[in-house]
């Protein structure tokens, strides 16, 4: 399911920093990862450490899933957050009483099938 293309490798540096795709030519930070820069379409992109801090935009508690592996983890909380660099990420939310615009911090976690995921918790 996860495609092993250059644009799907992501997540974190050896030091545990959060990495996002960065265009050295025009400075665009982008997510989800792409093969080329969404702004200038230049193709030699880098990974750059960004602040893991951001704010909560919206969230949902999922009571159903199309994916058998998630069934025993329901209900689970998913959110959309905006990092301070401007990128918007879908994340797992580890906050009991979420509030719109509350500050969050994003870390790397693991999904039910061992997939690497973003997890946001209270800052």
């Amino acid at each position, binding site marked *: 399911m*996860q495609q092993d293309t250059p644009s*799907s490798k992501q997540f974190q540096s050896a030091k545990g920093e959060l990495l996002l795709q960065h265009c050295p030519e025009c400075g665009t930070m982008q997510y989800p990862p792409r093969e080329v820069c969404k702004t200038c379409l230049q193709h030699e992109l880098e990974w750059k450490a960004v602040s893991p801090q951001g704010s909560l*935009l919206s969230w949902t508690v999922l*009571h159903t899933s*199309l994916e058998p592996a*998630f069934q025993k983890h329901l209900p689970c909380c*998913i959110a959309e957050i905006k990092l301070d660099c401007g990128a*918007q990420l879908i994340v797992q939310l580890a906050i009991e009483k979420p509030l719109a615009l509350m500050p969050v911090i994003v870390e790397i976690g693991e999904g039910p099938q061992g997939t690497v995921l973003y997890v946001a918790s209270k800052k």
Partner: protein
Amino acid sequence: MNKQTKNYENLVLTAPVTVPYQRFSHHDATWFIGRALRQLLDKSNLQKTAIDGLAVSSFTLAPDTIASLTEQFDLSARWLEALPFGGASAVIAAKRAARAIQNGDATVVACIGADTAQQGSFRNLAANFSRFSTNAVYPYGGAGPNAIFAMITRNYMDKFGVQAEDFGRICVAQRKNALDNPNSLLRKPLSIEDYLSARYIAEPLRLFDCVMPCAGAEGFLVMTKDRAHQLGLPYASLLAAEEYHNARTTEDIPIGGAWRVFKDDLYNAANCGPKDMDFLQTYDDYPVIVMQQFEDLGFCEKGNAADFVRSTDLSTIGNGLPHNTGGGQLSVGQAGFAGGFLGMVEAIRQLTQQPLGRQVIKAEHGLVSGFGMVNYNKGLCAAAAILKKGT
């Protein structure tokens, strides 16, 4: 925005057909597309050789393409168009078919939206919908569009003080409209209490906020007015149509769609406004998107859709704004890409006095709106058309 848009003078939509919906089917997409095409021929009394253009939307047609269909149906064509625009596909099909005929590239175009549905096929669609969703959305709970629209709904509720009951009014009115439509998969009366007591799917979305995926097909023909007259077919004239994709916005979570970009051009081209519409067919994958269409298409101000639904009778035979007059996808079911054709085909049915359910009492002008393709965290494609009863 594009004031130079050429009008669609003398182009008409006719022969609305529906291949009955079913929850699941063991047939593949070509069965549904083929049956729709056959019904178009039966209804229009045209020979297959008279169809020289074909526009098709289907998620489940792969590995076949629209080119495969010419051989499947032994059809020669001068013009083919595949429409991968989700719920915006039917309006775009009508628009492009009309342009092709206007430009002499085709004379009669069959427009068809069709999909099959098997156990697990919706999961496969959601899991492999786009690179972004496969990599950056689906791994988070595997919920498909429900998760994204739940978050759009929560944001919209918070921002404008909208209550669950307000969404419920839309769903309840549509169910009422569906009761007389034999093609509707959900035909049990729905009360606001039923709506509110239903289980959560993805909070704040409950069961009746979400469409039921199914199999089925919808289709119509595009031709000149003269041709429709010759064939003795009742028709709807295409007054205006617009599409827009990936509109720029400053909103982190969208509170509207790209209809905002072209609304004025659409009404100017049709020389009428929202108050002239005798009915409205919105794309109703979730009621929040219906509200955003009410606003972005000028039926009420931004943020006022909840007030609008509290004070407007949305039923087919009421004297408010007849809305999703056959029941919409929320009641009839969402037959994949055919879901985007439901509103268009229903609009043509209403304007030619051949509804499957109830007839809108005065149906002279109607607006059809489409929305589709949640590639990552918002719908990318929006379209709308204004149709007029043929004379």
